[in-house]
């Protein structure tokens, strides 16, 4: 149990550190560094405790139940390989933290840097420790996102932004492929547990989907590990601060890809296709990277291509497969991380102290920075594969595999030659790095006067170089046990134990190494000057740039083609869009109902009532007339709309729905006022628009009439078909039976709203609140059309005194209606649980009462007397409704469980006092707030326009007097 918790802490720790670092003040350089360093040290301490069980081949697992109902858990596992990798990440992480403390300048927002770095570390550990394939992909994408943030840390620099974006697009795109691969793997194996997938190699390889899975998986791994042809994001990412490069391109980001290749090689590898694709890509990347690295003039560019090349080497080994190759791959991951981190840091020191990274300008620095120079020379030796250094040993193992392993294919036969060529170039670019920067005459025209860096900035490099030496001389004693444990955890138990030794006698790999050293040295000696004069890249090939192709493609994919497609199939015409929507709805409706026995036997039939029929003759006439008049006679259309609404309201009352009738009537009122307020801002339309008489407009109207008639007939037929069938017993019966016993109310509709389905109502009132706020926000920026600002024609020529007595009697009545309406609203509210009424209708009533006051007098008069704060009403309503719901938790019930009882109040008698009533109070308050907010906000536009007018008039008066 304690192991499980420690494992979870190990994953969580960096994320906690990230959040903590993010909260530090901007100038807390040391604090942020200490925090990050200690977090990583804590992780290392946990790992130290895990060494014993892991080295004995045990796998430590930690599981957090997440959604146990569908078997979705967060599971983590730590085996030998993961242990080695996590240790590597955290160790180099600490050194990077220390280095960055001195590298970053005082003006950089440092806590943000450490926060991103910690979060990135956490995501990386997540990849390494995931026990579930889908979680692995999630962490994988997280590393893409955090590396984007890290690479773009200096976001003022356009190169950094471009580099970060390219890295994100490429690696996250690969992540999507990886997700697809993992989903397919999960389908093939029947589980997303990593253990199951890794043990099902035979099933996976025999499956018909093996090839697509493999290709998708490899795209994921290759993009992350910067393999050809996806390699170009890595040099672009060199715009990052050097500590980021040292971390991302040595131990973490790019190594995630090869980690995955090695981890999944038992499951996916072992076939000829795998060998050709993986080893082939690896070898191309190895040679291409090495050749380009020689021709780069930028120090970090050289190191970037060298990284690509070494990743190719590891990929090639993963493609070969087998215990010896995997061991070599794991070993080279460690060695490369150590020497490349130290080289990046050394390059950073040179950049920091001289002000340039251009090798053509740098020269003879060994004289002014002898210690840094010596360290860089040793590290570059490791990169080149010089004996007695760590890079040599794993490279020997690679060469031994290239020579000794056979499957008889042409690629296999070519391997030793290709490996030797790549090694020659590796030696040559390492020699160039050392030769051009540290030897020769001391450069004179550097931006800064070079000197040794602060001690603590150099310490990480010193330590890493020391490791290069120790591992290089005593490989078996230092890393033998750990590497074998890692190998066993990848390849399964019973893997033979390998002795890692420096000396294997004069064999072919040693000959190849020596040949490479000699030839590489010669190559640099002969071509060094020519290379320095040449372009940034190999002759001819420097013109083919992955970055250029990528940008060409991105421009088309993200800008040109989408616009072309949009121009072709899209439209900005709302009218057309609405027509398409209506036609689609029609088509779907017909498709669903065609041949479904549409009109069945009639089972239920209410005898037609003449009064009802006449009512609807009026209603239908109103609707048709409204449609006819809406263009040129808006006010008439509005009145007719009200007629149709009233008939609808009567229909509700007729068919036993008193609640609906009440609400519809009130809402009808408010809607009409609302639209009346809006009329003021529409353009005047006295004469007919000429184009309306033309043929295209006529055709469109007839065509729309056909659509509308078909839709209306369809809806009518559907309604008729359903209404004439018997009602099947449904959930409504349950509501009826239990409204009183469970909800404590006799008005079932209200009980459903505030008790049984209160959560729905909660959602509804939230929507109402959002709409209210949106209306308010939209109107704050409202600019009326110029011709609507002037006073309307009806007001012109009338003096304020005349307007003062306008509708005097009516306004007196309206004023006195205010308390009456409040009583009506209170009645509607309190009886709502038992009789028609409730929070909705009470709320609209109060809103109407307020509205009447606005109509009765004028805005200024009313606002001097009553202060309505609609937003507070809304907030109060939402809070009450939410609090009632949460209150149920206190008694151990689910959200919004209601409690009902009746209490005896003096004078009033038995009153329902359900907690649902409090919820209804929230509904009421919110409806009041939202309705009043919308109405007042729109009504106020007139006031604003009037104020603008007054201000203008005053300004003109001032002008005249002046």
């Amino acid at each position, binding site marked *: 149990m304690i192991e499980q918790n420690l494992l979870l802490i190990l994953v969580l720790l960096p994320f906690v550190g990230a959040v903590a670092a993010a909260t530090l003040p901007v100038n807390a350089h040391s604090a942020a560094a200490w925090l990050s360093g200690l977090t990583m040290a804590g992780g290392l301490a946990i790992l130290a405790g895990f060494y014993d069980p892991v080295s004995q081949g045990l796998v430590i697992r930690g599981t957090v139940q997440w959604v146990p109902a569908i078997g979705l858990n967060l599971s983590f596992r730590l085996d030998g390989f993961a242990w080695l990798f996590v240790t590597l990440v955290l160790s180099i992480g600490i050194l990077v933290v220390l280095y960055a403390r001195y590298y970053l300048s005082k003006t950089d927002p440092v806590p943000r840097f450490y926060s991103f770095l910690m979060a990135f570390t956490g995501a990386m550990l997540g990849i390494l420790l995931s026990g579930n394939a889908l979680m692995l992909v999630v962490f994988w994408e997280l590393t893409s996102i955090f590396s984007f943030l890290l690479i773009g840390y200096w976001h003022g620099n356009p190169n950094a932004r471009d580099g970060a974006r390219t890295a994100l697009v490429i690696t996250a795109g690969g992540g999507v492929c990886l997700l697809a691969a993992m989903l397919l793997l999960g389908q093939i194996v029947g589980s997303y547990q990593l253990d199951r997938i890794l043990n099902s190699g035979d099933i996976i390889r025999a499956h018909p989907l093996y090839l697509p899975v493999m290709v998708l998986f490899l795209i994921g791994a290759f993009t992350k590990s910067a393999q050809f042809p996806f390699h170009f994001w890595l040099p672009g990412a060199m715009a990052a601060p050097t500590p980021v490069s040292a971390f991302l391109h040595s131990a973490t980001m790019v190594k995630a890809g090869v980690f995955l290749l090695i981890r999944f090689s038992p499951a996916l590898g072992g076939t000829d296709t795998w060998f050709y694709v993986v080893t082939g890509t690896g070898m191309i990347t190895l040679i291409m990277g090495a050749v380009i690295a020689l021709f780069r003039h930028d120090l970090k560019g050289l190191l970037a291509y060298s990284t690509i090349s070494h990743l190719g080497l590891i990929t090639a080994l993963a493609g070969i497969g087998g215990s010896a190759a995997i061991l070599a791959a794991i070993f080279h991951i460690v060695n490369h991380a150590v020497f490349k981190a130290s080289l990046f840091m050394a390059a950073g020191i040179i950049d920091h102290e001289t002000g340039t990274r251009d090798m053509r300008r740098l020269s003879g620095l060994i004289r002014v920075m002898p210690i840094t120079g010596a360290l860089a020379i040793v590290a570059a030796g490791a990169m080149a594969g010089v004996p007695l250094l760590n890079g040599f040993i794993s490279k020997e193992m690679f060469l031994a595999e290239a020579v000794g392993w056979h499957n008889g294919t042409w690629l296999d036969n070519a391997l030793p030659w290709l490996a030797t060529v790549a090694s020659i170039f590796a030696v040559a670019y390492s020699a160039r790095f050392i030769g051009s920067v540290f030897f020769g005459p001391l450069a004179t025209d550097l931006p800064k006067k070079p000197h040794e860096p602060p001690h603590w900035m150099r310490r990480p490099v010193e330590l890493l170089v020391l490791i290069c030496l120790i591992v290089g001389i005593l490989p078996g004693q230092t890393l033998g046990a750990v590497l074998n444990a890692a190998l066993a955890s990848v390849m399964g138990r019973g893997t033979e134990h390998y002795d890692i030794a420096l000396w294997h006698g004069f064999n072919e790999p040693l000959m190849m190494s020596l040949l490479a050293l000699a030839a590489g040295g010669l190559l640099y000696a002969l071509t060094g000057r020519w290379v320095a004069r040449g372009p940034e890249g190999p002759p001819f090939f420097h013109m083919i740039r992955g970055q250029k192709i990528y940008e060409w493609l991105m421009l088309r994919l993200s800008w040109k083609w989408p616009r072309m497609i949009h121009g072709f199939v899209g439209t900005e015409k709302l009218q057309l869009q609405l027509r398409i929507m209506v036609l689609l709805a029609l088509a779907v409706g017909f498709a669903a109902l065609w041949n479904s026995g549409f009109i069945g036997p009639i089972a239920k039939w209410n005898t037609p009532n003449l009064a009802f029929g006449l009512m609807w003759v009026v209603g239908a006439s109103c609707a048709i007339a409204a449609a006819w008049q809406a263009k040129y006679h808006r006010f008439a259309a509005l009145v007719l709309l009200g007629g149709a609404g009233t008939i609808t309201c009567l229909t509700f009352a007729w068919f036993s729905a008193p609640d609906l009738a009440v609400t519809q009537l009130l809402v009808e009122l408010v809607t009409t006022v609302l639209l009346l307020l809006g009329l003021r801002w529409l353009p005047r339309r006295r004469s007919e628009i000429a184009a309306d008489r033309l043929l295209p407009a006529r055709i469109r109207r007839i065509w729309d009439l056909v659509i509308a008639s078909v839709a209306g007939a369809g809806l009518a037929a559907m309604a008729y078909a*359903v209404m004439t069938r018997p009602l099947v017993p449904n959930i409504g019966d349950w509501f009826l039976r239990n409204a009183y016993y469970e909800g404590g109310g006799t008005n079932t509709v209200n009980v459903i709203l505030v008790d049984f389905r209160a959560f729905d109502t909660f959602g509804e009132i939230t929507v109402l609140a959002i709409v209210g706020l949106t209306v308010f926000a939209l109107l704050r920026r409202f600019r009326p059309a110029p011709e609507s600002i002037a006073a309307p024609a009806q007001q012109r020529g009338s003096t304020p005194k005349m307007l003062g007595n306008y509708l005097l009697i009516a306004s007196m009545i309206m004023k006195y209606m205010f308390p009456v309406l409040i009583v009506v609203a209170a009645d509607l509210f309190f009886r709502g649980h038992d009789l028609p009424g409730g929070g909705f209708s009470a709320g609209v009533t109060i809103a109407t009462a307020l509205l009447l006051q606005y109509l009765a007098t004028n805005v200024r008069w009313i606002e001097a007397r009553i202060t309505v704060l609609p937003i507070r009403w809304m907030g109060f309503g939402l809070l009450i409704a939410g609090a009632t719901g949460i209150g149920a938790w206190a008694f151990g019930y689910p959200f919004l469980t209601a409690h009902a009882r009746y209490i005896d109040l003096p004078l009033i008698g038995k009153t329902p006092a359900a907690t649902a009533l409090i919820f209804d109070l929230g509904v009421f308050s919110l409806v009041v707030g939202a309705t009043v907010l919308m109405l007042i906000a729109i009504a106020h536009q007139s006031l604003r326009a009037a104020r603008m007018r007054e201000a203008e008039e005053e300004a003109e008066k001032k002008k005249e007097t002046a």
Partner: protein
Amino acid sequence: MELILSAAIGILSASGIWLLLRPRTFQVIIGLALLSYAVNLFIFSMGRLTVGQPPIMPKGGFVDPTRYADPLPQALVLTAIVISFATTALFLVVMMASRGMTGTDHVDGKDKD
């Protein structure tokens, strides 16, 4: 009754849809209001038509559900009425803003016909 109400739903919705396809914002807003009546009545009618039996229960005792109107469509329509008011208000404001910004009340934002 069923025939009258379904014809009413048909006419309301046809008028609403025809207005929905018209070029002026005010026409569309009236159309939406008409359409919301039609849809509310349609949903309401799914509970069948019952006269004089509102779903108000006695306090206690046995309840025979067939003697009352179906309360569920009523509850659905009640919130729908309030929400359709909210959308009308929202649309009205968008209409006003669009008129102020584009200088026309054409739904496409360009005065063409």
